[in-house]
């Protein structure tokens, strides 16, 4: 309980510790703390920004996908239409071709028939003349009666 020199010693030690603490302990540690605080704030900011970016990217991806789906649908529709058109055209062409063939065949048939008729007619004329000659026992001047014969043939 004696008050003595120890008190001075204590004051000196205390002063030394305080000064040391003020110079070499407090500033680095509080500096590190402040820096960490800043880092954390920045990190949180970055996370927020990244979140926003992600949302934007997702939205963009969704809209892109929707757009390409629409485009694809349009392309398919167009292709279908085109295919139908090609089929129709082909059908039309086929029909025309068939018609043409039919017409040509018909024409040939007609021609053939006419030709047969003509041949038949000329043969009938000759037959008639021959018949008449036989009946009249005289020759008939073919040239003189040609007009008559032809008229007869035309009536057949």
């Amino acid at each position, binding site marked *: 309980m004696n008050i003595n020199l*120890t008190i001075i*010693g204590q004051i000196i030690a205390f002063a030394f510790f305080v000064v040391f603490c003020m110079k070499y302990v407090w500033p*680095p540690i509080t500096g590190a703390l402040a820096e960490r605080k800043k880092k954390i704030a920045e990190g949180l900011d970055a996370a927020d920004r990244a979140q926003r970016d992600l949302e934007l990217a997702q939205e963009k991806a969704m809209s892109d996908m929707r757009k390409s789906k629409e485009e694809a649908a349009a392309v398919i529709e167009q292709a279908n239409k085109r295919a139908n058109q090609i089929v129709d055209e082909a059908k039309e062409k086929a029909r025309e071709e068939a018609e043409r063939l039919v017409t040509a065949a018909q024409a040939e048939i007609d021609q053939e028939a006419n030709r047969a008729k003509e041949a038949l007619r000329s043969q009938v004329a000759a037959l008639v003349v021959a018949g008449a000659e036989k009946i009249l026992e005289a020759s008939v001047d073919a040239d003189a009666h040609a007009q008559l014969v032809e008229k007869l043939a035309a009536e057949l």
Partner: protein
Amino acid sequence: MASEMTSSAYISHHLTNLTFGAHPENGLSFAQTAQEAAEMGFWAIHVDTMLWSVGLGMFFIWMFRKVAKTATSGVPGSTQNFVETIIEFVEDNVTSIFHYKNALIAPLALTIFVWVFLMNTMDLVPVDWLPFLAQKIGEAFGADPHHVYMKVVPTTDINATLGMAFAVFALIIYYSIKMKGVGGFLAELAFQPLGKWLLPFNLFLEIVGLLAKPVSLALRLFGNMYAGEMIFILIALLPFWAQWLLSVPWAIFHILVITLQAFIFMVLTIVYLAMAHEDH
């Protein structure tokens, strides 16, 4: 040890510092008895108090400096985490009480808190261990073990607490004068709280109030720790098988006391210095 001497001799042995100084008859020497230590007067030094307080202060400085050197703003290690917790605790207290710009206050508060806490913590070391060890060492150096004293809790030495309190007091005076000027400081002492017509009364009141600051600061810490130490010593007088019944609860309670006293010393220092900065 209690069996070798009377209870009162045991207690007084535990309450005597290892004192080195100029004795009027024996010259420069270690005091052999409490009586001799008292006779040395002012020109003596408590070797044990100095040893433990400076040792613990060095431990504080070493630990915190180690962290400060490698302090990183990245992921802190466990030691850095621990030190940062203490620093943030102190910083919170300082910023909530002290609203001026002063780079000294926070480190001062930190030093007081940790240092006082460490010195108080010595109280939890069983009372006989270190004194017994010191006696053995003293014996090895040829001293009479009965006259080797060792008080391991520096804060149970009034010199230690008064030393810190006086240092704080000096800072109070310094900042009062720095912030308010000599005139402002004297005016504060003279014209408060009752106006200039009661100047002598004001002066008396304020000077008593001013002096009460360091004295209360020192005596509060000293009284608490001295009483706590005293109870540990008294418990140590019981038969060894009964000691734990009292010493364990008291030690657990004392964990609160040593922390609280360190905290109070720190907070009051901040409050006093904030008052010194305050301009009326």
